[in-house]
């Protein structure tokens, strides 16, 4: 049918460049922002466009050069005392105004509290689509077979995101521009910071609208940094529901698994001088075990509804490896799976397998490591 069908090429003209909404905290770009700049670079180079860093805030100072140092070609910034604190209405107005007047081809946010607030509002106001939580960006044509013909939308961004229905889904915004995504941290490696890089820096004058300042910031306070630094760890040892029983099916105190995992983590940290952290599967966290209170908290969760991480080594202990978990750790460089069930899905993506009892694996590994 399709062979006789006519191919119709569609190009959306008049839009240029890949914008990155640059988040900053304490006078610095956040790390995920530098990652998204790298992601934007990959896409922009494919289609011969520029990467533009967009900064909004007050007293930005030298910060406006930072996106260039991290790989952007150009910066547009809006510096105004009324933009000192992030607030959804004035920020939406400023960014939407920029988008509607300058017509970017793509606009990328970080998946963060700001990205998940500002992104959707700007997408709605500028009448375009938003793909949230994407883990990769690929330039490709989008093909739509309709009774009237085979429509080929040239050079779209396939916004790749984890999707339970289809494993990994590609979201397209074929007819609307800009193509807006929020990009999950941990999926692109920031480009090395290079102070010799040069680029154009443009100041943008805000045009606020009535009612933009109806919300008032009463207080902003820093939250003590989490002790758990899952995203920064080079080695992550993760625990799943498998820790509740040993290979013979006998119930075990999950605190023992935590203690052993922690001992192994401490040993790795000490021996190899690398940051090592304990992670957990959603199933274990939501089991809400009394014994693990305060030990296994939400901030340790790896997976679709938790954190996406890509450490050098990921050791999955008693984790069966449901898709929702895998999307959070599959980019780890070396995956070690320990599970009594040889058919556990985790073994499909593991580089190293240990079919057996984690209550045997842990003491043995600790002992061996001590002797090494």
């Amino acid at each position: 049918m399709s062979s006789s069908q006519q191919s119709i090429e569609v190009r959306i003209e008049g839009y240029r460049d890949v914008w990155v909404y640059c988040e900053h905290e304490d006078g610095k770009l956040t790390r995920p922002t530098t990652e998204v700049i790298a992601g934007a670079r990959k896409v922009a180079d494919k289609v011969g466009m520029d990467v533009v860093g967009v900064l909004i805030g007050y007293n930005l100072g030298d910060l406006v050069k930072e996106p260039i140092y991290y790989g952007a070609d150009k910066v547009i910034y809006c510096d105004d005392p009324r933009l000192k604190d992030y607030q959804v209405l004035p920020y939406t107005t400023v960014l939407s105004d920029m988008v509607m007047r300058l017509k970017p081809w793509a606009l990328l946010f970080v998946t963060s509290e700001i990205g998940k607030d500002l992104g959707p509002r700007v997408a709605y106001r500028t009448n375009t689509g938003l793909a949230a939580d994407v883990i990769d960006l690929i330039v490709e044509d989008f093909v739509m077979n309709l009774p009237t013909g085979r429509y080929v939308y040239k050079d779209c961004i396939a916004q790749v995101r984890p999707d339970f229905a289809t494993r990994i889904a590609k979201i397209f915004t074929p007819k609307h521009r800009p193509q807006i995504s929020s990009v999950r941290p941990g999926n692109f490696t920031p480009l090395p910071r290079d102070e010799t890089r040069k680029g154009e820096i443009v100041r943008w004058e805000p045009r606020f609208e009535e009612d933009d300042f109806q919300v008032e910031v009463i207080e902003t306070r820093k939250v003590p940094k989490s002790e758990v630094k899952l995203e920064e760890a080079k080695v992550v040892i993760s625990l799943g529901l498998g820790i509740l029983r040993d290979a013979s099916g006998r119930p075990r105190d999950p605190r023992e698994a935590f203690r052993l995992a922690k001992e192994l983590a401490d040993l790795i940290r000490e021996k190899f001088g690398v940051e090592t952290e304990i992670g957990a599967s959603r199933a274990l966290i939501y089991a809400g075990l009394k014994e693990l209170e305060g030990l296994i908290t939400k901030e340790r969760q790896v997976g679709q509804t938790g954190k996406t991480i890509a450490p050098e080594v990921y050791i999955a202990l008693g984790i069966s490896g449901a898709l929702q978990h895998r999307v959070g750790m599959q980019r780890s460089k070396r995956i070690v799976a320990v599970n009594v069930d040889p058919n556990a899905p985790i073994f499909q993506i593991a580089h190293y397998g240990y079919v057996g009892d984690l209550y045997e694996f842990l003491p043995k590994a600790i002992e061996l490591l001590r002797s090494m």
Partner: protein
Amino acid sequence: MSSEARQDMLVFLLTKAVPARTTRVVTVGGVLRREEMDLVINPLDFKALQAADYAKRYNGGKLVAISMGPDFKVKPLLSELYSHPIEGVDEAVVLSDRRMAGADTWATAYTLSLGIKKVLDVNKAAVDEVLELVESGAPPEKVLERARELYHSNLLPNLIYTEKPGLPQGVVQRYARGKAGAEEVREALERVRKELDRFLIVAGLKTSDGETGSTGPQTAEALSGVLGKKIPDITHVTDFEVDVESGNLIAERKLGSYVQKLRAPLPCAITIMPEHRPGVVPVVRRKRAALFSYRGKVREVRVWNADDLGADPSKIGLAGSPTIVGPGIDIGGPPVQKFVGRTKVFTQRVEAFEFNGQRYGPFERFAKADDLPEELVRELEAKGLLKTFDLRDLLEEVLGGVVVAAKH
């Protein structure tokens, strides 16, 4: 109680029916076929329900759940919300229409905003109707009769008309007995009408199927367009309170490594973090809230289609969705795998060599030998060049690599 104090407040709960299981998900061309799956209320929406319920019990008013999806699937689920978790919702509306199917967050937000507007319109119309009766000089008994009907439809608060024991009579009831003047009735109705414009929208942080978390902020944006007035949203709310005196929302929200405390006028939309714990409502507040509440629950879930909402067909469902879900792709094949106690690996580096006319290698230490011809494996084993991969090898290879990586 100051004259500016809050009266009743409409609280909207945005909720969604999601697939009960992550297996057996039915999609056609990337569009979820909700009508063919077992559905449940999105788990995080219960956190939102708790929060919305708390706001209502604290301030009075009523709690209206709004959802979009195939009505025969969603209606029974919304019915369950009436008894959840403390007082539950008072009313529920499902926006259901074939033309709404396949909506992304943009089209969903547009549709939900029309649903909210319609609820507001229905409530305002009820107040206006009584107001007009009073203004047209209708006999007080007639005003009383109509108010009673509207009260039973849950459209007038106890302040205007009530049959609740323990509450003072409504202003219309007093009017009918000659104990209140038309002016007092008019004032009360006008206040109620004004309060209808100061509503709160509560949504869960995200849904378990779409996972985007975009619908809350986008509904606020869509509603801003529909009502012609900017409605703020506050996402990632960990704590909130409605300040009775000012009628403002005071909320704390997560923002990177900071917490922002905000004061927002109503109407406003919030999305609730899973860790939010509603506080305890003091008895005095509860008593006061009862005065400003409605009769109770309308158990029949209302169903509105696109025409009921006056929706622009080009803005709903698949047609109104800027994003399209493309064909799914696999996550990628398995890597080179080594199993402890099973995989044969080289014990040392072996330079390239020939065997039976074939060229092999070079092989690094720990290189996998499983894929080599059996005959060759036997010969290498005899030479002591192969061994079974053990735990020590695993640790050495895995963690040795870390040290190298850490140095770069």
